[in-house]
């Protein structure tokens, strides 16, 4: 094969990485380079250094170590049966690229993933070498996210956790059965066992309050995963129930949903269509409701029809329209949990309401100042000078509160 230049490799190996949704660089421990005189810092919340025209943030240098792969997962562009151009970075190339990009403030750190070459342990060992070199030889204090190989040996995963801020293992599909069908070499059992192992390690390294000596940091940014939406026939209920399972079983920080997007040289077993971006968006909203708004999966799914979320309105509004008996909510008396269920109130608006109403009784005008759009919340709340009367129960409420249908255009 002809010698490929660094720039060619970068083009191939970042192109191959663009199907992974995660790019977060948040949630790790605070650290900086003021003592080490090196470079790098993480200050809790991540920074997005650029945005691609697909609306996704670029926070980390997201690349594959190599896109050669012995596996043949149907949905993956790097599967062994696809004829895409292949390339492989050396460990040093990844280290240099990361440091150079970081010094120019292009990125927050590195997100390294890889196709599986030779075997799982060999591949994992190469990824750990990159992280080890960055941390130990260059004193790099930026963010490192490693995508671990599920059946790599526990010792390698444990070493990875000592260098990385976050570890992740992709669950890929909403059910074990569809994973078995589309990713014949990936065993759901290995993925779950690996996640379980990670959770135990992360908890072990957190230590107890009473411990004198702080244990070494182990993946302080926790673990995350990605699920591909729309490559198989699973409905939203199956997707959300998988997420619920993952959050509960393995304390994941995030489950990323990635609308299946057509890939070059795709297998004929896949849907050839535009990615269902709206479905992905609704799933993120539903996920948010489960994690921060006290909704249960059953409640969210019941807002839609037949196990699918309503694509035209957000899941909280869909739930509210089907549960009008719970409204209107009195903004001056309702508790936090109840306020969080009002469509149009986010956690910030609820905090502002609770803070302000300790000092004055709220009128609808006040509410307007505290939330994003008073028009949306009007039918669902009552205030000192406002009661929606029959509005809440009106048959044609939906068109009043639903966003206007937009003409889709490309620019």
């Amino acid at each position, binding site marked *: 094969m002809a010698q490929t230049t660094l*720039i060619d490799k*970068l083009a191939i190996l*970042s192109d191959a*990485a*663009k199907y992974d949704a995660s790019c977060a660089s948040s949630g790790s421990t605070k650290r*900086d*380079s003021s003592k080490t*005189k*090196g*470079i790098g*810092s993480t*200050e809790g919340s991540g*920074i*997005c250094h*650029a*945005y*691609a*025209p*697909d*609306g*996704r*943030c*670029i926070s980390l240098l*997201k690349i594959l170590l190599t896109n050669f792969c012995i596996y*043949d997962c149907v949905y993956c562009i790097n599967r062994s*049966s*696809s*004829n895409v151009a292949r390339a492989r970075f050396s460990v040093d190339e990844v280290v240099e690229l990361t440091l*150079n990009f970081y*010094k*120019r*403030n*292009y990125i927050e750190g590195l997100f390294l993933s890889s196709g599986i070459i030779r075997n799982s342990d060999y591949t994992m060992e190469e990824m750990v070498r990159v992280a080890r070199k960055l941390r130990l030889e260059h004193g790099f204090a930026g963010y490192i996210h490693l995508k671990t190989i599920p059946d790599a040996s526990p010792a390698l995963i444990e070493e990875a956790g000592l260098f990385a801020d976050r570890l992740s293992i992709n669950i890929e599909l909403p*059910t*074990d059965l569809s994973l078995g069908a589309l990713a014949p070499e990936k065993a759901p*059992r290995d993925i*779950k066992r690996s*996640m*379980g*192992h990670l*959770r*135990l390690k992360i908890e072990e390294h957190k230590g107890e309050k009473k411990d004198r000596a702080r244990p070494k940091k182990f993946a302080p940014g926790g673990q995350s995963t990605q699920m591909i939406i729309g490559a198989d026939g699973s409905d939203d209920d199956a997707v959300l129930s998988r997420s619920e399972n993952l*959050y*509960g*079983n*393995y304390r994941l920080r995030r489950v990323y949903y990635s*609308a299946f*997007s*057509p890939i070059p*040289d*795709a297998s*004929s077993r896949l849907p050839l269509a535009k*990615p269902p*971006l709206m479905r992905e968006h609704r799933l993120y909203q539903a996920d948010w409701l489960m994690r921060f708004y006290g909704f249960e999966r059953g409640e969210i799914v019941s807002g839609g029809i037949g196990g699918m979320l309503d694509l035209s309105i957000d899941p909280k509004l869909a739930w509210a329209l089907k549960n009008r008996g719970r409204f209107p909510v009195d903004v001056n008396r309702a508790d936090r949990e109840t306020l969080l269920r009002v469509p149009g109130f986010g956690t910030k608006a609820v905090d502002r309401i609770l*803070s302000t109403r300790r*000092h*004055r009784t709220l009128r609808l005008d*006040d509410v307007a*100042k505290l939330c994003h759009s008073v028009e949306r919340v009007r039918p669902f709340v009552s205030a000192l000078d406002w009661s929606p009367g029959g509005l809440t129960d009106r048959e044609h409420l939906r068109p009043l509160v639903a966003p206007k249908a937009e003409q889709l255009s*490309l620019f």
Partner: protein
Amino acid sequence: MFVASLVAPADFEGWRSAARTALALGIEPEHMSFSVEGEAGELFAEPLPPMPKGTAPAFVPRAFPDLAGLLVCNSDPERFRLAYRLLWRLQNEKALLEIVSDPDVSRAQEMAKAVRRDSHKMKAFVRFREIETPEGRHYIAWFEPFHHVVELTAPFFMRRFTGMVWSILTPKRSVHWDGVELDFGPGASADQKPADDDMEALWLTYYASIFNPARLKVKAMQAEMPKKYWHNLPEAALIDPLIKGAEAAARRMIENAPTLPSLRHEKNAERMMAQRGLDEVFAGFNKRPDDLQEAREQAKNCRACPLWEPATQTVFGEGPADAPVIFVGEQPGDQEDLAGHPFVGPAGKVFDAALAAAGVDRRQAYVTNAVKHFKFEPRGKRRIHAKPNMGEVKVCRWWLQIEREMIRPKLIVALGATAAASVLGKTVTIRDTRSRLIDLDEGTKLLVTVHPSYILRLPDAAAKAREQAAFEEDMALAKDFVPEIALG
């Protein structure tokens, strides 16, 4: 009308001392103004007199200095007056800052938010370029903030790039770091911006390649990376061509017919298939396992009841294949499910403590569960233990029977009612069966006791101690009957 003059556009210290003086003099907010040196100030205003001696310090809630600190960085000409008006009002309205719907408070918060956002965007969008100087490498950036955020944001760059020598030039302020201290200076002009370095081509390649043309969302991009910042971002020049080419690129991905896999792949696939075929025979279900190890492998794939899917893994029994005693619990818990070993969680700790107290060596015994998958209900980020039903116990008995037949122990200790039901094949109560040796078959006796998690869940300490002692007595009973399991 009074005026206080400030030395810099975001001179918080200057504002603070002037505001204190004005407050002490009782100057009402309408009569107070501030002017920054070099900018046009209020006409006909007289300079602020000195602070009267012996003035008591002004009251402010803890949140105010932070808010005012951000507020004065805003480019709005009214910022200093608004900060002073808040300070004035806070003297009588102590909870003012919590009333977010108040016009002054909400305006101040919006202005502070704009400053925070601009500072955040500075952290994100500053792009350094490297130049070689006789003293070494120097990283220089040109940036145009919308508010006065250079002083506010510079410490971030200092903490992040401690080991580099760098400068950030902006139209109104500049800041330099030489590895030891931050040095602020006057503004610079755009022509001092350095030429691109050899990394920029790589960065542009990365930017173009990481974009997925099938997911175009231009609005989402612009919400976070407003156009006003684009002219200083090298990658922004790529945005338009990428958008224009997206539709065609996405169409190409869909329209191009899949190619045939390479020969290398075919060979690999064949080899993998052969390998996997063997694994499946090994773990096959058509065949009764010959030994415990084979049973353990088979059980990993067990889907006899629906508990397999939500659980992490099958937790099979562990211990010597010729153990004289089998301890049977109910089912693995949260920790057991993650670790893949029986009795390693909180109930396992109680169990281990009781064994130690009774002088039993756990390593000499075989420890297992009636049901081999963890049954639970998800509740937010927790899993609530759910009791297995008789159907699940019955199906899973298949594995317990195999364990029993292969190990042929002298004694089976059933921990709790579920275990007892599984061993006996019928429901019994702990009260009727506990603490005596029951004949199972010619070689094996059964001892029924409580499950250690029962002790764990007792709320009152006295009951806990009583039950712990009774449980230890049961363990001692087991040891007396089978002395081989005693600690050596």
